[in-house]
């Protein structure tokens, strides 16, 4: 039973990041896309925590950053949801492909 | 003599025009302004001659310098030498004639005159500024009014022509800009000041890059081959006064720039590229002449002949001798007056016959003797008849060019000499078909020129004849300046 090191965590966070990105690219449902954004942000949180714990244990910037990111994420999500609802009002759908009126 | 007046007078005129109530007020204000310009130009001329006579050694007289963007080492630096004085005189003549000719512009009179005066403002500023930044500023000021003049009051495929003109000229000035920046940074203390720069030896490698940029950039304005195609369309679509200003003033900005900025600041580059310049301008001269021969539309004819005539300007500059450069300046002045007059006459004819196709006219001499007499005069001037300005200018260029004994220059000069025969061919063709022969049906009771047209024509004719019969005053005015430029060139090995 070995102790997980920085690289394990970084691996996970990076994986999480790309999963999030992939989800953002492929999902059609706006809410799901939002969720995949959250994944990205969380991977970043992991990064910060890990760096803070393993590299710079005596500087707490990472931790604070994580906390703020969580807060901001919440705010962002709130606005996004509000906008999505608005979109639903006008489009009667939350499928991203129905919102491609403006192009070229 | 305070040079600022040359900027302020047009400025005040323009603002006054904007304040005027009705069209007639606008016209009279514009005319007053133009007259004031003319008077100013003459005052400047005599003041300058006085200084010259007093043996003032300075290259640039009446200098004034005001701080403007000091952090860029830019200063509003004004001053004139013989060349600029000649150019200013030319501008004043063309402006007043243009104002008179467009006396009965019905649509948007106020805007029309406003733009005319604005254009003249740009020209004056350009000719008197000794700071390259200021010079460039005025150069670009002069572009947009042309665009609007053509686009709004023009005829034919005016939008196309206006766009082409604006874009090509802007392209030219873009090149100029890059060249200027190169010059600016090439010197230890970054400066745009012409005189300071002329004292500093600009490093050869910079000249190698910047001279062509500047020369071609300015060359676009004066229809350097093959970047001349804005000329025919632009002139032919422009309203009469528009084409007068275009050919009479703005094509001269280019020539002046080539001489004053490109050659004067970068003699080494000039030496290096003179061959190319000569070849290009010779092509322009012959090719323009032959192309003119095939034109049916009077305005196109004059536009192409302008290409050919401005070829003489560039040829004179490219030859890099004192006489040839003097000739180039003379040709600029002469061509300015002449072609402005030509366009004015074409405009007058067009207003009456409503066609510009030579083969649709004939025998107009019978019904409009005055206008056609002027047409004769200007035609003869353009084919270089002694006693009119064209002859003097061209001969000076020839004499100057002939001073190089090597084949290239010889061939170029001979080709240029032969071009005057072609000129005779197309001019006589045009005159013969419009003025002479039996009169075409429907033209029997056309009216002759009105007072304003007569006045405009006479003013320009006076200019032409004054140069043609007594060229020495222009020569004395210009040649010291070109002498100084030549000395700069001779400094290079």
């Amino acid at each position, binding site marked *: 039973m070995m102790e997980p090191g920085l690289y394990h965590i970084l691996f996970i966070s990076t994986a999480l990041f790309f999963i999030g990105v992939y989800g953002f690219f492929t999902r059609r449902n706006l809410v799901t896309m939002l969720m995949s954004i959250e994944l990205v942000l969380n991977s970043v949180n992991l990064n910060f925590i890990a760096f803070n714990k393993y590299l710079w244990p005596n500087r707490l910037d990472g931790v604070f950053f994580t906390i703020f990111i969580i807060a901001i994420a919440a705010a962002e999500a709130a606005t996004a949801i509000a906008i999505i609802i608005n979109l639903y009002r006008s489009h009667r759908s939350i499928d991203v492909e129905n919102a491609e*009126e403006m192009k070229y | 003599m305070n040079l600022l007046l040359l900027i302020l007078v047009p400025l005040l005129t323009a603002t006054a025009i904007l304040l005027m109530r009705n069209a007639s007020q606008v016209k009279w204000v514009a005319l007053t302004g133009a007259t004031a310009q003319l008077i100013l130009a003459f005052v400047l001329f005599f003041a300058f001659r006085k200084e010259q006579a007093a043996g003032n050694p300075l290259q640039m007289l009446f200098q004034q310098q005001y701080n403007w963007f000091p952090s860029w080492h830019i200063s509003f630096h004004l001053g004139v030498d013989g060349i600029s004085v000649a150019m200013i005189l030319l501008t004043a003549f063309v402006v007043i004639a243009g104002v008179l000719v467009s006396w009965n512009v019905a649509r948007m009179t106020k805007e029309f005159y406003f733009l005319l005066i604005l254009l003249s403002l740009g020209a004056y500023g350009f000719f008197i500024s000794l700071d390259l930044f200021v010079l460039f500023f005025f150069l670009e000021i002069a572009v947009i009014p042309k665009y609007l003049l053509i686009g709004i009051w023009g005829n034919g495929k005016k939008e196309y022509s206006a766009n082409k003109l604006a874009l090509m000229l802007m392209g030219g000035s873009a090149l100029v800009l890059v060249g200027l920046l190169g010059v600016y940074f090439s010197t230890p203390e970054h400066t745009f000041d012409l005189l300071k720069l002329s004292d500093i030896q600009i490093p050869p490698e910079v000249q190698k890059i910047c001279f062509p940029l500047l020369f071609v950039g300015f060359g676009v304005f004066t229809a350097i081959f093959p970047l001349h195609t804005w000329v025919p369309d632009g002139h032919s679509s422009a309203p009469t006064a528009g084409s007068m200003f275009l050919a009479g003033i703005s094509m001269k900005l280019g020539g002046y720039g080539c001489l004053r900025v490109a050659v004067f600041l970068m003699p080494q580059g000039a030496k290096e590229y003179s061959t190319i310049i000569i070849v290009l301008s010779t092509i322009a001269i012959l090719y323009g002449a*032959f192309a003119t*021969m095939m034109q049916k539309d009077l305005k196109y004819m004059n536009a192409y002949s302008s290409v050919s005539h401005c070829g003489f300007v560039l040829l004179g500059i490219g030859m890099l001798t004192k*006489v040839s450069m003097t000739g180039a300046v003379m040709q600029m002045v002469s061509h300015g007056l002449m072609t402005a007059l030509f366009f004015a006459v074409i405009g007058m004819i067009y207003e009456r016959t409503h066609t510009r196709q030579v083969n649709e006219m004939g*025998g107009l001499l019978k019904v409009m003797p005055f206008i056609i007499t002027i047409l004769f005069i200007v035609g003869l001037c353009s084919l270089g008849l002694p006693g009119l300005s064209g002859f003097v200018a061209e001969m000076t260029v020839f004499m100057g060019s002939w001073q190089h004994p090597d084949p290239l220059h010889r061939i170029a000069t001979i080709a240029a*000499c032969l071009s*005057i025969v072609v000129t*005779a*061919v197309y001019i006589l063709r045009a005159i013969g078909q419009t003025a002479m022969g039996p009169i075409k049906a429907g033209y029997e009771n056309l009216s002759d020129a009105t007072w304003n047209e007569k006045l405009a024509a006479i003013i320009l004719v006076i200019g032409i004849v004054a140069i043609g019969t007594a060229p020495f005053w222009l020569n004395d005015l210009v040649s010291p300046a070109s002498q100084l430029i030549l000395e700069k060139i001779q400094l290079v090995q």
Partner: protein
Amino acid sequence: MPNLTYIALIPLLPLAGFLLLGIFGRNYFKTTSGIIGTTLLLIATVLAIYTAYGYFFEYGKVAGVYQKLVPLHYTWLEFSKGVSIDMGIILDPISVMMLVVVTFVSLMVHIYSLVYMKGEERFPTYYAFLGLFTFSMLGLVVSSNIFQMYIFWELVGVSSFLLIGYYYDRPSAVAACKKAFIVTRFADAGFLIGILILSFYSGTLDFNTLIQKLTSPDSVELKNAVAASFLGVSALTWGLVLVFIGGAGKSAMFPLHIWLPDAMEGPTPVSALIHAATMVVAGVFLVARLFPVFAISAPEALNLVGYVGAISALIAAVIACTQTDIKRVLAYSTMSQIGFMMFALGVSGHGGENGLGYTASMFHLFTHAMFKALLFLGAGSVIHFIHSNEMKDMGGLRKYLPITHITFLIACLAIAGVPPFAGFFSKEEILLAAYQHNSIIYYVALFTSGLTAFYMFRLYFSIFWNKKADIHGEHHGEGGFALLMPLILLAVGAAAAGFIPFGNFVSSDGTKLESAFHLQFSILPVAIGLIGIFTAMWLYKKKNDKPDKIAASLSGLYKAAYRKFYIDELYTFITKKILFNLIGRPAAWFDKNIVDGLVNATGKATQTISEKIKGMQSGKVQQYAIYFLIGVIALAVLFIYVWK
């Protein structure tokens, strides 16, 4: 030496007339303009004669040599040290002689026109143009600077253009004046380049200096000019030949003569003045002016002059025999006579006895001015009377126009070289000079003079004898005094001018030249002349079909001559086919399609590209994100692996 600045008035008075009548004539001097012009010219003529008298008999001669005086001279346009266009007046025998000739003939024409042109709508304009021409011609002859001469050279060209095109509503007149101007213009380009060459090597434009520099054997300029060569011919020769081309153009020498016959479209007095007496001899005058340089430094150029002159004389004479338009006949005879003058110069040497040709040429120029002007004016009154230029409409006019008939006869005898009329003396000197120097030219000249006599009398007989023309309706008589007075005066000149001891005044080096009169030599020319006359009489005195028979018998030659040897056609081919179709049209096409096309193409290209790449902006937010990520990765790769 008295103050001679007043001489400037001689050219300036006609100029004043031109300006006055040109600007105000139309409105203020509708009828009086003729008088004004004439009076001004009268004054000028008096001054000219006074000057001539003064020059030849009072101050002109120093130590037996006529000097080149420059009483007036100021710098007009200075190019560089020494090289400057100066406006000046040079007085030497030929210029003084020309002053007299020009003013006198011009005065005659002015008077003559008072009647001839009466009632013309553009009467003032006509006199204005006459004034302009006279001014330019006088300026030309007194030029002290080669560039000044070029200036006036161009001015006479344009005034001739204006006068030929006087009847501007006749298409033929328009064509003629354009042709005249362009052909001479083409020649003038040669003149100009010649000037450039000469000035480059001699370093001056002033005639005296130039001649002095280019003739004195030990001058650097001359050495350079001869040393520098192109196509194996020395630069000096090139220069002179080019200058001569200019002269040939004005003087209608072969092959640049085509404009002269057409120029007869102008009013007849104008033809008399410009295209007979004065302007067309400008070429001769030019060569005479530079004669020392020709003769001393570039004899080969002078030979060219000689041969061109001879050929022109011959060809013109042959053509003249076949023309039916009386003015055209006169035109060709003019050309032929000028040919005489030219080759006279060509065969002349410089100085002393060798200079005979020079004197002869100038002498002939003088006499020719008289009788040819007379012929034209006579023809004018004939035309005035019969309203046609064609021989076939004429005949038996001696009854109607007695004075014209007599004067015309005198002129014909003069030009045919019958003693004791003026033409005899001058032509005889010319033949003598030719005989002494160049036998080929001599025989050509001999034959030509025979032809001259023939076609002149063909003209004379078919106008005044031959069949009887139908004079329909009542005819106004010969016209008033003003019309006849010039004829008479000129007739006197044509009859008596020969007795002037010309050699005393005009010679190649200014010294006195004894014109010895050799009877035994002049028998042959006179005889040939008479043969010509009698042939003409035999053929044309009575109406008969002999001429047509002969014409038919040598049809080929006749046709060719009648069609002026197809030279016009050749020129039309060159201009139309080559200049317009092979150069002009392609140039215009190239400009429209290639140069302009490229400019537009750039615009098009930009448009199409922007249309092509619009897919980037797909409106899909996810695709935007993909581009985003691609951008990030690209940058990372670029700057971590490539740029680092």
